């Protein structure tokens, strides 16, 4: 263990202390706002330092409590993990700012900020876990804090969504845990790197790959792939926009991360699984796209898009060539930024018009031309209008698909892109172009036009920040592509990961 590895604790422990601090500020919601914003700013700083260290020096690892791997718990930051931790922190900051201006006081008094921070900690932990059971534990905290965030405020719609969310996600945890038990029975270890080493020595490879399927189902539920996605469209429109934004950006991506991690590190031997994932990707792309087509509530449209676009990442994993993995990673980074932003955008529209129904919305373009221009960035980035961010990973993915002769998969990707294009264009026409109706005025509802400028700025700033990030990804695609290629090469050759953990 090197001393540089110790730094790995920093982003994680900082999130933990911030969460505890926020708990102690229970009644002081005004202080919580600022603590959350500045805390997450610091968190972003720490994550950036971690990212830069990994970028320069390669994968880092640290053993909790100083117990040598594989006996203790290992944390690992390779390029993939460090990138995701960085993105998590960025989303965390954006959402903290947005929450400070948008979440109702009542919810803040019920512990909104501390729970949000626990969720962010759980996400960072999951990305850094180098131990499969430790990963499970991080998933636990993610589930429980997201459950509390969905229910916080206790409106009927929220509770209904929360029950579905929780039931299915607990089911996922049970499957995950069972899979861990089988895996432990076969290998006697929980450490990911150690698993990668021992995987080759297992006599009963068939049983080993059965446990892989269990993992696929467990993580598949989390990633919301076909036919395991039901919890997502059932719950994402319920909580406050800020919460949905974190969920949309990061929750499913943790599942995808876990899939990519274990299917590039531990279970790489069985071609059946990759072929199977190809079919899952096709159906996910189709089902999500078709689902988005028939929604009227814009948040539901975006929810189905989350499902649809997970298909691109699964497709990359299924093709499993280096360019395909790079495409999947690129898509993931793009998707985290854009999806989070879309839900912030939906929240902003709600503040302006007090509805998220496309039929009732309209006239934003005439009333808020510059804001519309800003909102167009995430919308058209999602579509992948070149050269915006969603376009680039498709180049890698489609080319990789053609090279691997996965023509059906390529077709599904194109169909999904087409559906996304049409649906977003229609949404644009309905929400921005069509003549608007004046919102039904409800007293004390906190309309955007009535807000003081500072609060308005706090609402728009995070959207602008994420939109800038999208533009950067799009116009300087080379940067993210180089990063993605490096990640892909690390993923397809796990030796460096293993070396970082096991001396």
């Amino acid at each position, binding site marked *: 263990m090197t001393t540089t590895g110790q730094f790995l604790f920093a982003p994680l422990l900082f999130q933990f202390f911030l969460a505890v601090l926020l708990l102690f500020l229970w009644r002081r919601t005004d202080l919580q706002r600022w603590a959350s914003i500045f805390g997450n700013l610091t968190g972003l700083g720490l994550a950036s330092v971690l990212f830069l260290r990994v970028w320069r020096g390669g994968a880092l690892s640290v053993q909790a409590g100083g117990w040598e791997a594989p006996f203790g718990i290992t944390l690992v930051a390779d390029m993939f993990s460090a990138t995701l931790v960085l993105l998590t922190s960025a989303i965390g900051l954006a959402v903290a700012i947005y929450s400070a201006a948008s979440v109702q006081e009542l919810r803040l008094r019920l512990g909104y900020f501390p729970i949000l921070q626990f969720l962010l900690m759980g996400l960072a932990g999951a990305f850094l876990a180098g131990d499969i059971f430790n990963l499970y534990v991080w998933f636990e905290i993610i589930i*429980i804090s997201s459950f509390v965030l969905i229910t916080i405020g206790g409106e009927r719609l929220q509770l209904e969504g929360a029950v*579905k969310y929780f039931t299915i996600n607990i089911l996922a945890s049970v499957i995950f845990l069972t899979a861990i038990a089988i895996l432990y029975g076969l290998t006697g270890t929980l450490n990911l790197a150690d698993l990668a080493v021992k995987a080759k020595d297992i006599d009963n490879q068939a049983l080993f790959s059965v446990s892989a399927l269990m993992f696929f189902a467990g993580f598949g539920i989390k990633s919301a792939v076909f036919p395991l996605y039901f919890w997502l469209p059932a719950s994402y429109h319920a909580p406050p926009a800020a919460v949905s934004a974190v969920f949309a950006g990061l929750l499913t991506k943790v599942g995808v991360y876990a899939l990519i991690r274990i299917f590039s590190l531990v279970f790489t031997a069985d071609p059946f699984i990759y072929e199977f994932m190809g079919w899952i990707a096709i159906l996910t792309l189709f089902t999500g796209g078709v689902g988005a087509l028939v929604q009227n509530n814009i948040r539901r449209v975006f929810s189905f898009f989350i499902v649809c676009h997970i298909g691109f990442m699964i497709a990359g994993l299924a093709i499993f060539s280096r360019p395909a993995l790079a495409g999947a990673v690129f898509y993931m980074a793009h998707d985290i930024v854009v999806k989070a932003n879309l839900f912030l955008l939906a929240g902003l529209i709600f503040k302006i018009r007090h509805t998220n129904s496309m039929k009732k919305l309209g006239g934003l373009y005439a009333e808020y031309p510059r804001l519309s221009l800003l909102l167009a960035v995430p919308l058209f980035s999602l579509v992948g209008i070149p050269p915006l961010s969603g376009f680039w990973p498709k180049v890698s993915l489609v080319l990789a698909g053609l090279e691997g002769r996965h023509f059906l998969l390529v077709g599904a990707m194109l169909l999904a892109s087409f559906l996304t294009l049409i649906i977003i264009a229609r949404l644009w026409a309905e929400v921005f172009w069509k003549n608007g109706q004046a919102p039904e005025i409800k007293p004390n509802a906190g309309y955007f036009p009535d807000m003081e400028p500072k609060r308005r700025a706090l609402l728009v700033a995070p959207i602008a920040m994420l939109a800038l990030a999208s533009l950067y990804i799009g116009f300087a695609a080379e940067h993210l592509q180089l990063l993605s290629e490096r990640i892909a090469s690390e993923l397809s050759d796990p030796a460096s990961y293993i070396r970082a953990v096991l001396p």
Partner: protein
Amino acid sequence: MLLAVLSGFIFALGLAAFGRRFKGRAVVLSALLPFGLFAYFLSLLPGAAAGQPAVYRYAWAPSLGVELSFHADGLGLLFALIISGIGTLVFLYSAEYMKGHKYLGRFYAYLGAFMGAMLGVVLSDNILALFIFWELTSLSSFFLIGFKNEEAASRRSALTALGVTGAGGLLLLAGALLLVYVTGTYSIREMLTSGVALPEHGLYPAVLCLVFGAAFTKSAQFPFHFWLPEAMKAPTPVSTYLHSATMVKAGIYLLMRLSPLLSGHQYWHATLITLGGVTMLYAAVHILFRTDLKGILAYSTVAALGILAFLIGIGTEAALLAAAVFVLVHALYKAALFLIAGIIDHEAGTRDVTRLSGLGRIMLPVAAAGFLVAISSAGAPPTFGFVGKDLIYEATLHAGPWSTLLTAMAILANMLLLYGGFVAGIRPFAGPLPEEFEKAHMPGPLLWVPPVLLAALSLLFGLAPQLLEGMLARPAVAAMVAGQPDFHLKLWHGFNLVLQLSGLTLAGGLLLYWLFRPSLRLERRIGRLENISPKGITEGLARGFERFSGWYTHLLQSGYVRRYVFIIISFLLALVSYRIFTSVNLYIDYGRISSMATYEAVILLLMLVATLIAVFTDSRLAAVAAMGVVGYSICLLFVFYSAPDLAMTQFAIDTLTVILFVLVLYRLPKYLKISNTRGRLRDGALALAFGMLITVLALEVLNEDINREVGNYYAEHAYVLARGKNIVNVILVDFRGMDTLVEISVLTVAAVGVFSLLGTGLDIKKRGEK
């Protein structure tokens, strides 16, 4: 050259920032941008003619193969000149036409962005860059068609256009990447010289389908043409620029550019000739049934695009020359006709050709221009149109075995085009002036000069086609054929067959113009066929797909958690059991299973009975109690297998759970059975099957030797290094202390969650306030 292409985008961005100040003289001055570009591209002509075209490269995202590499050869410059030239006139014209419009800045921003994108399409050498610009033209077209965004019809047309061209765009992406895969390069020039004989490649049909899909949607070929007449909802300058002179020719450009690579196979020629031919005749006949000026022009544009595809399909040097010249011919006369239609609409307030007449008395220069371009569209001497049409007949006459048929088709299409041109360019100006138009007056010079200029060019190039020969036509054709093209552009070829055919066309067309009157009645009659037209069919399919989507989505996303769980468990069951029964060697190693004592059997029986009670009882309390029994039995098993510390933990948890359950149940309403027997049987069967599956899995895992390295390490080091006597405790707080820390956080969060759920909900608060 980078600046030249990007200047349109920079202009658009500037307008996005300072759009409000954009009015008055600044608008007119903005035409200097396209004019400057026009001059710049003119200055590049000699280089292209000498075979040393200007080249620019910038590595944008080299890892993804995308370079901004521009290559100004003859073909690219032909289009670039049309884009910037007509762009100049449209910029000027719009300054007057859109004067005082609230969103003038926005309008020019879209136009500027479009111009940049379109230049990018025709100058890019990198096929992905071409695709990027291609998509941007579709997008700017979407915004321009929907410019009158408060009108539902405009919005719908914009969506239709984006739907068709967007689908084509995605096909182009796939086609481009397939070409990259096959040829191993991203540069179109390198593809052409790579020596890969594409028509013999196994993927050739796929490439062809994709490229055709892209080109046909963009260039409005049958049966994808219907978006173009719809797009006429856009302001007239937009129709002039995008939907007649430039953007719709992007597909044609693509075909021309890739022609050396893809042509030479029956698939290429037959498809293009057939579809191009059908398009030109189908659209040309439709001209007869239209009464709206822009409708007539839209269909004659589709017909012209059909002719172009048809010529590229013939693919001989003569045909390609005819296509290149016809691109210019058509851009000149059709843009002028659109601009004139805009003037008429602007001044007379209608575009209905059955009502328009006599306007020549008011706006003579416009009428003169109209006359000139109408005869150019008719292909009558001494206009440029005559040169173009001669070349077309020259090409069809030497097109091999089918030449007679092809020539006849071309003649028929040209007769109808003549009719369309005359109706749009001559009829509104001829005859007596009806009372309703007496208030119309001569438009300002910004409106009438651009069409007059275009008409003058049509005449000039007709009288002196040799002006174009060396600088433009020859380099353009050279880009499409192998070797040096050899031809001369002339107005007069002498009395030959082609001239006789021209005479025939003129006579036939004129006869049609004299005898046939467009009427609303006919327009309505053809409207009845809407349902079986490509547009109607496509819309029907789209509606059907949407209905299917609704059905499919609600089938899966039913809203019932129990159904979701059912699907998820079934999925897992099917997947895992398929894999187990096909690949795992199933057996039970009895040697590894310890024999069972009587008391163990009793405990198991107890668990089984308790489980059955929990499932079948009607009382919640009994179910909870039964679950408690199962829990305690497990504790007992732990005790038997010498794990007392685990047993104690489990015991405490089970007791707490049961107590909590009882407390909560006390407050719940009466138990209701909401599922029927069939549903319960189905769920029971699934549960049973899943339980058996897990059992099989567990048994199979037991067959394997467990690697005890980690466990032994804990046993050996718990006391020595961690100073703890209870191994379980040491694992929890030391070896794997971090797990415990996080689990404690889980409990904290859960506690907060319980607090927030208990009677502090927003709904309840609201109710309290009321």
